[in-house]
């Protein structure tokens, strides 16, 4: 899937050391985001995946090495220039009291605006398009406080979309949503990917990663353990190595992508597992 050679990717990390204060999370980390991919970063808690995303979005500067965007160190750009190329859906954002959907989405236009150029025709069109793509156009005039969790997250996605960047980073976008809204959002991201965006998401759900991602990066203890297509990365051996979880990997009956079924403690299936030979998997 990834046709881009790692050395030429638009966005990549080159032997970077990233950490907080004196605590180093990653050392000599090199990661390339294949152009036009839907890359998903997976790994256990505190493996450095969110830190990786923060450095890709310039929120955290590596203490050694560099993050390269379009051939130059990301820190050599003006802040607004980076914001016109790379967008971010942060893990937590705050909606100001009494803000309406369109008002919030319009805030995403900031990097394209100046002190006296605050609302051009381009801004208007970008906001309309972003709201249509995320199906929140009908909510346009509503207060954000009144929306459901799933609607609200779509509004935040619309804000990031209005920023009009080729590359979008998504930090655990589905974490606080119920399963229906999770799937809805993942399909929205797939649409955006097909529309030409390069997406990088940090996800907890391996099955979502395998089903929707085109390129997976598995991290553990701040280092990349494996990367490649979902079929290459999501294997029983790798899941055990990265997460310490014994599991079966079976084809997803709907999408055909690899699906992780945890083995857990010894137990007999409630219904005889006729398609999968659980016993032999446990033993071998």
């Amino acid at each position: 899937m990834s046709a881009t050679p790692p050395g030429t990717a638009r966005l990549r990390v080159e032997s970077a050391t990233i950490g907080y204060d004196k605590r180093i999370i990653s050392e000599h980390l090199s990661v390339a985001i294949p152009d036009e991919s839907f890359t998903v970063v997976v790994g256990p808690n505190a493996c450095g995946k969110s830190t990786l995303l923060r450095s890709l979005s310039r929120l955290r500067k590596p203490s050694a090495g560099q993050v390269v965007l379009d051939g130059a160190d990301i820190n050599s750009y003006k802040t607004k220039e980076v914001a016109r190329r790379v967008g971010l859906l942060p893990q937590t954002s705050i909606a100001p009291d009494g803000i309406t959907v369109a008002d919030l989405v319009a805030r995403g236009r900031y990097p394209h605006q100046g002190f006296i150029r605050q609302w051009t025709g381009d801004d208007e069109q970008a906001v309309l398009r972003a709201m249509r793509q995320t199906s929140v156009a009908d909510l346009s005039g509503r207060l954000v406080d009144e929306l459901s969790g799933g609607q609200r997250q779509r509004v935040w996605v619309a804000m990031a979309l209005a920023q009009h960047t080729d590359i979008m980073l998504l930090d655990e976008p589905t974490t606080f949503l119920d399963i229906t809204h999770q799937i809805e959002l993942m399909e929205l991201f797939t649409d955006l990917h097909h529309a030409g965006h390069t997406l990088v998401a940090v996800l907890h759900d391996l099955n979502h990663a395998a089903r929707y991602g085109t390129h997976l990066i598995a991290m553990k203890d701040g280092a990349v353990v494996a990367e490649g297509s979902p079929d290459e990365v999501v294997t029983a051996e790798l899941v055990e190595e990265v997460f310490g979880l014994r599991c079966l990997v079976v084809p997803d009956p709907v999408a055909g992508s690899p699906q992780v079924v945890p083995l857990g403690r010894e137990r007999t299936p409630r219904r005889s597992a006729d398609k999968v030979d659980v016993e032999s998997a446990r033993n071998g």
Partner: protein
Amino acid sequence: MNTHIPPVDFGRRMLVLRRRRIAVRLQWRSVVVCAVLAVVIAGAAVLALMTGSYALGPGQVLAALTGRETGIVHDIVVEWRLPRVAAALMFGAALGVSGAVFQSLLRNPLADPGIVGFSQGSYTGALIVILVVNGSYAQLVGGALLGGMVTAVAVYVLAYRRGVQGFRLIIVGIGVSAMLGSLNTWLILKADLDQAMSAAAWGVGSLNGVSWNQVAIGGACIAGLLLLAGVLGRPMRQLELGDDAAASQGVRVSPARLGLILVGVALTATVTAASGPIAFISLVAPQIGRRLTRTAGITLAPAAFVGALLCLVSDYLAQHIAPTPLPVGIITVILGGGYLGYLLFTEARRRL
């Protein structure tokens, strides 16, 4: 305006101005509210210029202002009463914007330069200049600025624990404010009687005896600072979305926040240097402005207009309701105290 693009429904009526390189979007309601406030302010200003031991009619006031009146009426309006009215308007606007900046940055309606100790700190700086150095007005302004800044840094450092969380900063600020209050009392007690009298009267916040000189210096500072606040208002709006969102949208978070804090402290300190700490306007004005305009988050212009009006009206009441003129600070304390109690009550119920 382009007509072929369907306009975005913001849920509120918007005023879009586009001409050449200018493209601005304003809320109709904010524009109307600010315009109405401006008219009310103008009326209140004329009333304040009319009232006094030598009562004047509105015609006389307008004639004096436009230079068609000379002699005693001109002196009363332009030389005696106008500096006070101008001071009330400018200082009120400065306090309103200062409060708006802090309430937006800390996302808390309690975040007020008066409550978290910055105006007490400015007062301490000014007291030291008056009582110890016996300095000039310029030195007084410098002392108040320095005092406010040092207090802001101290509160920030004391509240710092892996970043600064709004509510902790406010609690620490209230503590620092109380300590500075006792320091100020001690400084006044140590001083000789004449100095102590003037310092204490000034400490309540008063526009009595404001001169054109002070208005000019203070006004120039405030005008510059308000302009800066206006430029920083856009990053401030983005910061309300959270630091990560703001940064990813191209805001340089640390410089923007530092700039806003400096502007906010400087506005309060400038007012404090000229008139002493006028309490509560910075606390109340941004919230009244927000409720009137129904904007998302705190906006600067309505806070400035409401602050100016509040300060002018409070000063008018202070001068004319009691047999002897009171300091304006007493009126604002009376007006704002009840509101503060209500706020503390609701905040505590929400957080604890």
